[in-house]
């Protein structure tokens, strides 16, 4: 199975793989979430959702359902 951002542990990093562009909101790309960039999981909110990540210099929080769509390696 392919790894996604949700598989990271807090403090762990990964590289964003090519994701299926159509499923990802444009805003996420605009915030810097771009294939080939490093992503770090900083914190997981209470009740396990959303996720706080640093990607491409942006500190952002996204929900688990979107994070699941972003493959990493």
């Amino acid at each position, binding site marked *: 199975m392919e790894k996604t951002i949700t598989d990271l542990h807090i403090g762990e990093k990964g590289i964003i793989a090519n994701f299926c*562009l*159509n499923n*990802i*909101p*444009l*805003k*996420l*790309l*605009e*915030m*810097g979430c*771009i*294939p080939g960039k490093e992503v770090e999981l*900083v*914190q*997981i*909110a*209470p*009740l*396990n*959702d*959303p996720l*706080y990540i640093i990607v*491409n*210099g*942006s*500190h*952002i*929080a*996204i*929900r688990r359902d*979107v994070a699941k769509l972003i493959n990493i390696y």
Partner: protein
Amino acid sequence: MSEKKNIKIALAGNPNTGKTSLFNVLTGLHQKVGNYPGITVDKKQGTFDLNNNTTATIIDLPGTYSINPSSIDETIVIKTLINKNNIDFPDIVVIVAEIDNLKRNLLLFSQIKDLEIPTILAINMSDQMKRKGISIDIEALEKELKTDVVLISARKNSGIENLKKALLNPKYKVLKSSSHCSEKIDATFFNQIKKEIPNLPLYNAWLLITQLEDLSAYTQEEQNSINKFKINKDQLSKLQHKETIFRYAEINAILKKTYKVDKSKATTLRARLDRVLTHKFFGFIIFGIILTFLFQGVYNFSAIPMDFIDTSFANLAEWVKNTMPTGIFTDLLTDGIIAGIGGIIIFVPQIIILFLFVAIMEETGYMSRVVFIMDKVMRRFGMSGKSVVPLLSGTACAIPAIMAARNISGIKERLITILVTPFTTCAARLPVYAILIALVIPETSFYGFNIQGLVLMALYLIGFTTAIVSAYILNKILKVKSKSYFIIEMPNYKLPSLRNLLITIFDKTKAFVIDAGKIILAISIILWFLASNGPNNTHGNAENIVAKEIKLNGINLSQAQQDQKVSSYKLEHSYIGIMGKTIEPAIKPLGYDWKIGIALITSFAAREVFVGTLATIYSVENNDEDVTGIKQRMQAEINSETGKKRFDLPTGLSLLIFYTFAMQCMSTLAIVKRETNSWKWPIYQLAGMTTLAYIAAYLTHLIFL
């Protein structure tokens, strides 16, 4: 004197870059808040002098990460910048960026640059560069971007003169058609656009195709060609994604050459604070403590100024009473208008504290952390973490709160938030609560707690709980299709700027007081007219009818008692009395009489007029000079059926509960209409909340009777 030259400047930039700080520094108090036509987005405009013979008009556009809008506020940016005929179309755009995340800031810059408008890049917070180990080669960056770049610090007030110089004399001019969406993304497709829509710059045409629905500013021919391209949504979305990736690739290449960070110097303050403030357990605890502190603060810090305002208004009313001739008009002035407006002004200290608190939470960056930790919890109730902001602001006033719901991207989450926000106890309910609690709740203590204070707290809790529970129910019954995605930035922590806080609070408080004041004034006057006039055969003939009645019953009354009877009769048969009497059967089960009914009717315009309305009614009826002050008048009011006090415990509690639930604010309904773009939701809201209020007040009256 020679005519001064004026240039129009627009400020654009990501949220949290200090764009508004720069605006405040440039304009000082020469700013005004207006509205964009059709929507309620605040339009902040100001003026300042560039030099002796040039002035500048500057407009602060809403913060956005991209020119592609994802909320109503953000559409302003594209609408202002895409059409040369727009009234606000600028001569030059200043894009405010910050040193920390220059990369993402440059995305918006590259988009605006493509619109072929002159631009200047202002890099803010440059005072922190050394500490953060950042160095930028400005000259190289200017060459790469073909734009003037200025380092500024809005907080430290540095670099502003350089920015002004650049505004007067930019080194770089606009380059035509260096458009990004070219061969590199999809040559055939963009060549086709060029061919079909030759009169518009390529990037403008591309934005019109992907972003805008309203094309009325363009010719029929252009509209047709644009609409032709709109059809294949999948392809467009793929191209937009590609465009963004392409832009970032370019930006990265530029920054590699011009921007260096010494990682060893990067501070870990943000990381450390985040570890605690977003912690699974401590995050909630800290937020809880802050909330407790907030509500404590609202009451403790405001006590002294509130007493002062109360006394001042009482003195003012007293003074007017003594200097003006006695009569109904003076009563209207003192009891209706001065008392009504005083009833609002007295809550200004509390409103200031609430707005101050929300503003501090937003300025420091803490609000984003609250949104983060609350998101999953709020989602159980069909809302979003971002709903925390409206629900918190709703404790000051529902109007700005409902406008704050715009940031919620899910349609259903946003709608539910808008619908339940008016349940939170807003400042306008406080004058009603204050007087009713003082009338019916004894001033004793209960295990060391003041009972009056406990009742007030209970009302807050009831309001908040109802908001949450109705959100849960709405989430189950509303069938709104909504694909929501939740992306928020977690900005770096900042010390709030005093200037920004003061300006925000001043604007918001002023708007609240003026809006409420206008309504109170209008209602007092209408009410006074309706209460002192009536149909001729009864109202106009009151003296004779009352005299006849007295004779018939054969009672002996003094002249004063007789006059009293006449004015009571007159009020009962005035236009407003007839209205009150008509609804009396409906409100009798709640424990109210027709006079309270009148206050209920006027309260549907705005709840805070309750006190002023009763004051006006009682003073029209009662000419007794000895009784002053609305509280004494209400205390003296007798229930004509039982002979006991009108405002006893069952009636008082029933009224409190009614005001907790009922939708009594025309301004809120108007805002809901504008924000949801239909009459359907405000009407549901009005009907639903008022029905709930009726049933709950009925049960309360029944239980305590």
